[in-house]
C-alpha cells in the first residue's frame, strides 16, 4: 500500500519549471531514495510535499488524504516529518530541550492548565523528559544532553536533527541529505542508525548524494533530472541505467567546461 502518493506534482518559480509532473509512490515500510544531479528538483519536491512550498499543480496523498495546501504543522501532525539539507537545530537550546521541542505533538498541555500549574502539566513534563532521554539514548547523545545544540560537533548536530524529527513520531520520515558533510565512519554509523529507525516501523524517503549510502540502504531508487523522473528501480538497476549515468556525467562534464 502506498503511504505517500505524489501525482503529477509541478512547481514553477516565475518562468522556471523546477518540477514537471512528478509522480511517485512511497510504500509503507520501505526506504525510497531520490537521487539526481544538483538542481534536479529534489529539495523542491521535499518542500512541496511537506507543505513549505505550494505546488503549481498536482496532488500529494499521505495516508490517502490530499495534503496539498495544508500547513506544515498539520502535515507533521498526520505523521509526515522532514529534516533539512542544511544543519537545522535550535542552536541556543540544550540537546535535551531540542528533543522536548520535537515532542511538541506528543505533549498535551493547554495554555490554561499551564498558567494554573495543574498537576497534569507536571505529570506530562515528567513523561516528556523521560521520552526525550530515551530518544537521545537512541542516537547515542545521552551524555550531551545539557550541551547547547549549536556547540555540538557537526556530525552530532546532524544526528540531533534526526532525533528531533523522530521525536515528532513520524510514520514517514523525509531525510534531506542527512550524511552530507559527514566523514566515512560517521556515514557508516548513520547507515546503521537508519536500519534501526526502519526497524521501528518508520518509512523513509531519502534525498542523498552519497551513492554508497543510497545503494546500501534503499529498497528502491528514483532518479530525477531537470525536474523529471528519468529512472526508477532497484539500486542495482539504477547503477547500470545509461540515462542515469548520462545525467550525472553530463553534469560533471558541464562543471569541467565552466
Amino acid at each position, binding site marked *: 500500500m502506498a503511504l505517500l502518493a505524489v501525482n503529477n506534482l509541478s512547481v514553477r518559480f516565475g518562468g522556471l519549471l523546477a518540477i514537471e509532473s512528478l509522480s511517485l509512490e512511497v510504500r509503507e515500510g520501505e526506504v525510497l531514495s531520490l537521487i539526481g544531479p544538483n538542481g534536479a528538483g529534489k529539495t523542491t519536491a521535499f518542500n512541496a510535499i*511537506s507543505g*513549505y512550498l505550494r505546488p503549481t499543480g498536482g496532488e500529494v496523498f499521505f495516508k490517502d488524504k490530499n495534503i496539498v495546501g495544508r*500547513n*506544515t*504543522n498539520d502535515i*507533521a*501532525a498526520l505523521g509526515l*516529518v*522532514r*529534516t*533539512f539539507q542544511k544543519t*537545522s*537545530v*535550535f*542552536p*541556543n*537550546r540544550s540537546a535535551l*530541550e531540542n528533543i*522536548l*521541542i*520535537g515532542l*511538541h*505533538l506528543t*505533549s498535551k*498541555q493547554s*495554555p490554561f492548565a*499551564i*498558567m494554573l*500549574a495543574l498537576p497534569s*502539566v507536571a505529570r*506530562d*513534563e515528567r513523561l516528556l523528559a523521560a521520552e526525550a532521554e530515551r530518544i537521545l539514548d537512541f542516537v547515542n547523545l545521552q551524555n550531551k544532553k545539557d550541551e547547547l545544540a549549536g556547540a555540538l560537533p557537526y556530525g552530532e548536530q546532524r544526528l540531533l536533527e534526526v532525533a*528531533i*524529527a523522530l*521525536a*515528532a513520531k513520524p510514520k514517514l520520515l523525509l531525510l534531506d541529505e542527512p550524511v552530507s558533510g559527514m566523514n566515512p565512519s560517521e556515514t557508516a554509523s548513520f547507515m546503521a542508525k537508519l536500519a534501526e529507525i526502519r526497524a521501528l516501523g518508520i518509512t523513509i524517503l531519502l534525498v542523498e548524494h552519497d551513492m554508497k549510502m543510497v545503494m546500501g540502504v534503499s529498497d528502491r531508487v528514483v532518479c530525477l533530472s531537470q525536474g523529471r523522473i528519468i529512472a526508477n528501480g532497484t539500486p542495482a538497476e539504477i547503477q547500470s541505467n545509461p540515462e542515469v549515468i548520462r545525467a550525472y556525467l553530463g553534469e560533471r562534464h558541464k562543471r569541467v567546461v565552466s
Partner: protein
Amino acid sequence: MKAAFTIAGLVVLATLPWWLDNPYILHVLIVTGIFIIAAISLNLLLGYAGQLSLGHVAFFGIGAYASSLVSLGFDISLLTLKPKPVWMAMLAGIAAAGLCGWLIGRIAFKVRGAYFVIVSISFVEVVRLVAVNWVELTQGPMALNNIPPLSLLGISFLKKPSNYWLVLTVAVISYVLVKRLVQSKAGRAMVALAENEPLARSVGVDVTRTLVLATVVSAAMAGAAGALYAHYIRIVDPDVFLFIYTVTMVIMVVTGGKGTLAGPIIGGLIFGLLPEGLRAFSIKPEIQWIIYGVLMLAVVYFLPAGIVPALKRRLRWLS
C-alpha cells in the same frame, strides 16, 4: 540557595513600606513596578517568541483607558455605561487589552521582521490618534480625570503603601505566569519559532496559534499594568501611547536580557530608577533622553545578550 535568595528578596520587597518612610521613593517604586510588569509582558513576545513589537504601549494604554472608562462610566451616542466598581473595571481593562492582542496577533503575524515592527508602530499611532480625536469618549487631550482608586474588600487603594503591595502582587503573578509558560510546551514552541521557524513547523508547531497565544497573554498583562497605572495616577491622557514608553519597555528587556526571566526585572529597576537618579543631579529631560539613546546603543554594542546572561556567564566562570 537560589530559593533562599528569592524568599529573602521577596521579604525585603514586601516589608519595604514599613521601614522606608519616604512617599516619594515609594511612588518611584510603584511606577517602576508598573513598568516592570509591562516589561515582563513584553519579554514574552520579544524575548521568547522573538517578535520585536514596537507597539506594546498600545496594550498598556488600552488597558488604562478601558479600565478608567468602565470605572467612570461614559455616555456616548452608541452606548451608555454606568460607572462600575474598580476591580471590575480593571478586569475589563485586562480583557480589552487581551482582545486587542488577539486581533493584532491574528492579522499582524502575516508579516514578520521589519514589516511586523512597522505594523506594530502604526497600530499604536492609530490608537493614539483615536484617543486624541474621539473626544466624546476619551475627552481627547483634556484627559480622563478623577479616576477612582481601587477599593476591594473594604480596603481602599488610595494610599501609596497599599498601591505598592498591589503592584508587587501583580508583578509576582506576572512573573510566575511567564515562568510557567516558558517552562512548558507553549513556551518551548515560542522559543522554537524564534530560533528556527522552519524546523519548528516541521515538528508540528502551529505558528499562528503560538504567536497569538504569546500576544494575547502579553497584551493582557500589559493591560493589567495600564489599569494599575490609571487607578494609581488617576489621570489618563493620549500621551500614554507615546512611542517613548514602548522604547522604555524595550530598553528594559534588552538591557536586562531578553528571553531571561530575571532580565525585565533587572532592566526595569535600572531604567525605572535611572531617571530619578538623573533628576537628582537636576539634569534636563533632553539630556536624560540622550543618555537613554546612547545607553541603548551601548547595550547593543557591548552587552548584546543583556546583563543577566552576562552575569550568569561570569558566575559559571567563577565556579
